[in-house]
């Protein structure tokens, strides 16, 4: 109720806007805003700091990556073979990982992993030229052991890849078999001359220039020395002559190393217990991708040919075509690739009177000569042999335009204060040549003269359309005297009557420097002298062959008074275009950058290019070329025997086909093929032929398991003779490939047993009655030792007599088999041809003594195992292939294929004994007294000796290097010193081009750097970075 009546309700007061308290609301808002702003600022700053830290870390990573790549690049650029795409080592197509590098300050070491990937053409020889071998000379040497036959009974650990020095004499003689590298004369030669071997680049990190798995011998006396621009590694250091002797006769810029097993203190350094076949040194030998042309590529990347990839069909090698020669008429002859088994036919051509050029077209030539007694003999006088793509000449039997024949001077003379010969010269724009030193008072003239252009233009050449002199030299400014026209060339031609042609070497666009070689613009002599002289040139008829071949070029240099000037003649050659028959240059007759040749030498092939004395008018030049299967351009490829086994390089698996038949079988011999005879003897068949090994009637594994309890049984009483004869069928009807085949080995086995008391049988005799004029053979002939004759079994189970095997049927290998005797069936005039084998009779005869009593003889099997190679199939190299022992102080060694029965010319083997002295007739290749050999490529002959004692060979024997069992070298010098082997730097290579990638420990890519090495002068003299990207590609 309202007091006082109705009351007006109190007016409701409306609050004014702005009177309400809202400050507290704004304050938190402000706080929040300020806090957020502050936090944002702090966060911003933190982000900035964090970003800086991250950026700083990235910079450290960048530095680390750059440092690691720098280390990797340094390693690669100082190792010439690294970065070469096909080299197989680090930074090749096979191996990109260079490992991890520790970078960062000490204590903060961080590991950066670097990969290096070469470009597809990195380091490859330009224009198809072959690679050079890792070692200019790699000699395998000989070693004791069972050799390289690869026979399953070879003792464990025996190395099939080892050459054929076996241990006939091991029990009593020096186990050292053969030297690796020998520098010096033969025993019957004088001692005045010296051998020189100049190695390759000698750059740090290079592989050894010379690597010998045996000794390195430098015979004292004369100027013999081993000059190597790098390292020499020898396995044996033997005294007194089997040794590497640094400081005495060897000058090496590198190291002389003897590997860990070297026992330098002993006379014969390799302990017989060292373990045959386990030598690590051989690893390198196997690493060479020794493959024949036409073989499959090394797909598994192990650097070796793979046995499973062998595709060559050794039975279908095409015959090569041997040209005919009409003495006095034929001037040039051409061989075609293919199979050659007749050295006499080859000799007929290369020794044909009138022949001047023999050309082997590019391709693969298989030489398989039947006897070492008939080798490929020395070509006739003035014969040039060239294998490969012609270089500057055109093959023709008539006259044709021949362009750019290169004439290189062979002889030099020096006058005044002249001439220190430097390395290899006369390669235009090479890096060495002749130094011409001119010092002293006055203005004396120093000169060097070049004459004697060998491999001349032929006498019938005419129409000389171009005669140009290429010349390169370097001369310091103090040797340049324009007032008097020095330096200059004085050119003359013997017999021309022209006098001298003086050509000042003017300053042209080139700049004379102390060390820069100047390639002078070509000096054209086509129309006469471009300088002063030769006024009668035109009136005398100009050029003719005699005048060209008689060119004489003298380089003259003067110097300012009181000065000393050293100039250098780097190269000189004459280019001639003419019309006539081809006349290749030497060296340079073939082009190693184009298709080359490969001479595959097998069987008893030998190259005996030794002249009577000093005839230097004949030469052989072979060019190997880089192919898909042979990067080293092996122009000479000596076929090892059974080279390899599962997992190893397998050059030529012996294509032997084994035919084995057994007497008691139901398939062989044919009905009527068995003749059982004997007066008073009863022959019956017994048992049931079995197949104990389950491999069928002709199991591959033949042998004692053939004793299957079935055969022929003879019974008689008293003194009788029982004979069982088996006639062989026509083998060609069974196996067509045996027709015209080479019989490699024939093994005869008889399993028999005789029942009765001891002494009731007098003997067992096996006989062979060949067909086609072969001689009958009997086991009791005088040449067969008693130990090899069949004996009465004397046991209930019988015994297997075997003749012609490697192993002893009773228990493994025989240490001293008498192979010349045991191989008589297959090698002698018995069963050595398919014609003599087919239809031959095999006989076993049992003779009983006069003692009374019953006799019972069982013949369980007569087996004949025939190994043969189909016609025109390759045989591995065999026979007499050695020349000297490792240590001439003892002259005790063996070195012959044990299969080789020709005792007359087997080195160190005469029958079953050892011989002494050198065996010049035995090496695979002999160059002596004049003939020149130049292989623009490499030589591969791991089982053979090379004996190269060329007289002024004028070029390396093999530019790319050599792999051989033994190398003898001597008298390889003349005024032009050059490598005997190696020097393959002349094969121009493409620059190495690599991509480096750096990764951190977590595998993150940090940087990518692409580098191109300039290898023109020296390995990676400059490294040019073409791109550098960080992480994700940001430059």
């Amino acid at each position: 109720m309202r007091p006082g009546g109705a009351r007006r309700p109190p007016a409701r007061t409306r609050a004014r806007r702005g009177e309400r308290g809202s400050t507290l609301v704004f304050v938190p808002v402000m706080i929040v805003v300020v806090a957020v702003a502050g936090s944002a600022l702090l966060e911003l700053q933190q982000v900035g700091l964090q970003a800086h830290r991250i950026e700083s870390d990235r910079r450290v990573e960048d530095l680390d990556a750059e440092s690691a790549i720098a280390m990797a690049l340094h390693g690669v650029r100082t190792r010439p073979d690294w970065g070469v795409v096909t080299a197989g080592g680090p930074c090749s197509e096979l191996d990109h990982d260079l490992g991890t590098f520790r970078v960062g300050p000490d204590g903060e070491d961080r590991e950066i992993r670097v990969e290096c990937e070469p470009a597809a053409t990195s380091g490859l020889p330009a224009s198809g030229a072959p690679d050079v071998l890792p070692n200019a000379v790699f000699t395998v040497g000989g070693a004791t052991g069972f050799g390289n036959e690869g026979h399953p009974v070879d003792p464990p650990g025996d190395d099939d890849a080892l050459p054929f020095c076996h241990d006939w004499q091991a029990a009593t003689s020096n186990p050292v078999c053969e030297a690796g590298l020998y520098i010096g004369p033969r025993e019957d030669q004088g001692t005045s001359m010296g051998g020189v071997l100049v190695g390759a680049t000698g750059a740090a990190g290079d592989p050894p220039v010379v690597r010998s798995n045996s000794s390195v011998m430098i015979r004292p006396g004369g100027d013999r020395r081993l000059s190597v621009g790098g390292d020499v590694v020898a396995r044996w250091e033997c005294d007194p002559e089997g040794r590497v002797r640094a400081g005495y006769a060897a000058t090496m810029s590198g190291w002389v190393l003897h590997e860990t097993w070297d026992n330098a203190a002993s006379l014969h350094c390799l302990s017989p217990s060292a373990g045959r076949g386990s030598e690590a040194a051989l690893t390198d030998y196997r690493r060479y991708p020794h493959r024949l042309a036409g073989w499959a590529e090394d797909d598994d990347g192990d650097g070796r040919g793979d046995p499973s990839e062998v595709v060559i069909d050794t039975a279908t090698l095409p015959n090569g075509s041997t040209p005919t020669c009409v003495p006095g008429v034929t001037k040039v002859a051409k061989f075609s690739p293919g199979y050659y088994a007749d050295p006499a036919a080859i000799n007929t051509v290369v020794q044909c009177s009138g022949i001047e050029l023999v050309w082997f077209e590019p391709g693969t030539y298989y030489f398989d000569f039947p006897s070492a007694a008939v080798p490929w003999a020395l070509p006739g006088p003035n014969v040039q042999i060239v294998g490969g793509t012609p270089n500057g000449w055109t093959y023709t039997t008539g006259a044709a335009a021949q362009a750019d024949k290169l004439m290189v001077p062979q002889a030099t003379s020096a006058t005044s204060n002249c001439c220190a010969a430097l390395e290899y010269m006369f390669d235009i724009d090479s890096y060495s040549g002749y130094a011409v030193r001119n010092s002293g008072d006055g203005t004396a003239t120093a000169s060097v003269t070049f004459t004697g252009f060998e491999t001349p233009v032929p006498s019938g050449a005419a129409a000389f359309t171009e005669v140009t002199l290429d010349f390169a030299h370097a001369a310091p400014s103090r040797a340049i005297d324009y007032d008097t026209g020095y330096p200059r060339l004085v050119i003359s031609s013997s017999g021309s009557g022209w006098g001298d042609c003086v050509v000042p070497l003017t300053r042209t666009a080139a700049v004379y420097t102390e060390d820069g070689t100047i390639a002078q613009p070509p000096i054209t002599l086509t129309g006469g002298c471009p300088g002063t002289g030769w006024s009668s040139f035109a009136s005398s008829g100009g050029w003719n062959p005699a005048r060209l071949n008689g060119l004489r070029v003298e380089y003259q240099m003067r110097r300012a008074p009181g000065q000393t000037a050293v100039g250098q003649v780097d190269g000189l050659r004459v280019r001639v275009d003419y019309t006539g028959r081809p006349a290749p240059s030497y060296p340079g007759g073939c082009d190693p950058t184009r298709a080359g040749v490969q001479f595959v030498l097998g069987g008893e092939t030998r190259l005996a290019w030794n002249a009577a004395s000093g005839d230097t008018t004949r030469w052989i030049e072979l060019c190997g070329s880089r192919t898909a299967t042979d990067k080293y351009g092996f122009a000479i490829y000596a076929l090892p025997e059974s080279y390899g086994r599962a997992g190893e390089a397998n050059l030529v698996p012996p294509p032997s086909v084994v035919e084995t038949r057994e007497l008691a079988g139901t398939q062989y011999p044919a009905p009527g093929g068995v003749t059982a005879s004997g007066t008073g003897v009863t022959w019956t068949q017994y048992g049931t032929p079995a197949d104990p090994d389950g491999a069928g009637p002709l199991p591959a594994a033949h042998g004692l398991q053939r004793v299957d309890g079935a055969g022929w049984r003879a019974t008689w009483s008293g003194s009788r003779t029982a004979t069982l004869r088996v006639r062989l069928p026509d083998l060609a009807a069974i196996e067509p490939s045996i027709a015209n085949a080479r019989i490699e080995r024939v093994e005869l086995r008889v399993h028999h047993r005789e029942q009765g008391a001891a002494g009731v049988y007098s003997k067992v005799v096996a006989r062979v009655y060949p067909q086609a004029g072969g001689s009958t053979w009997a086991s009791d002939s005088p040449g067969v030792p008693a130990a090899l004759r069949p004996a009465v079994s004397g046991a209930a189970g019988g015994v297997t007599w075997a003749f012609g095997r490697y192993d002893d049927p009773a228990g493994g290998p025989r240490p001293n088999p008498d192979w010349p005797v045991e191989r008589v069936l297959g090698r002698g005039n018995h069963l050595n041809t398919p014609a003599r084998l087919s239809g031959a009779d095999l006989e076993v005869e049992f003779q009983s003594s006069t003692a009374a009593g019953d006799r019972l003889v069982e013949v369980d099997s007569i087996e004949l195992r025939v190994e043969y190679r189909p016609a025109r199939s390759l045989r591995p190299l065999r026979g007499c292939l050695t020349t000297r022992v490792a240590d001439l102080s003892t002259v005790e060694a063996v070195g012959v294929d044990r299969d080789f029965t020709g005792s007359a010319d087997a080195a160190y083997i005469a029958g079953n004994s050892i011989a002494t002295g050198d065996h010049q007739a035995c090496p695979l290749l002999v160059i002596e007294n004049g003939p020149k050999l130049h292989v623009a490529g490499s030589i591969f002959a791991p089982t053979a000796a090379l004996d190269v004692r060329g007289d002024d060979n004028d070029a390396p024997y093999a530019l790319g290097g050599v792999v051989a069992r033994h190398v003898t070298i001597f008298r390889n010098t003349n005024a032009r010193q050059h490598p005997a082997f190696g020097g393959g730097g002349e094969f121009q290579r493409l620059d190495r081009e690599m991509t480096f990638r750096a990764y951190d420990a977590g595998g993150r890519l940090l940087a990518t750097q692409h580098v191109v090495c300039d290898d023109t002068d020296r390995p990676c003299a400059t490294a040019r970075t073409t791109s550098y990207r960080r992480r994700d590609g940001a430059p």
Partner: protein
Amino acid sequence: MVRDGADNAPVTGGNRSGGHGPGSARRAIPPADERGATLVEVVLTVILVGLVVVTLVSALFTMTVTSDRHRRLAVADAELRRYAEWLRARPYVVCAPAGHTSPYGFDALDDPGVPAGLTARVVGVELFRYDDPTEGLAGEWVAVAPDCGAPGGQVDEGLQRVVVELESGAGADGSFTRTVSLVKRTTELSS
């Protein structure tokens, strides 16, 4: 203290219900939502604003200091990087000249021009030794005396690890040092 929501006069006491009696002044009773809490708000506001201000000032100070350090670090790192690049571009030198402690940084003409307040120097040079130069690239860094010690005693295989240190001048938070290392080859790449 409270405030009258009507006239804003302060009310200190009295019968707040006297308006019901006769004779008493009719005073409007303000509505409840118009009552003032102003003093509390003000006090709280002052406190909070103070805190905010203090915090803000502190943060600003920290930011200033940090920013300065950040700037100095950035400058130092940049200079260190520049110095490292300068060293990398210099010819490869193995041994320090007589009287110097480092193969690098001794030539005034080649001074990289490190700004004032910063000091850059090479504090260590090591050479790389391959375990086997003919084989792989494995090896180790070996410290050498700056002058390479006795003649012939130095084996240089062409790789150096150079440790560079940069020291800042005193700042608000004192001085600091930064260190990096780089690897030099005997022949520098030309990019």
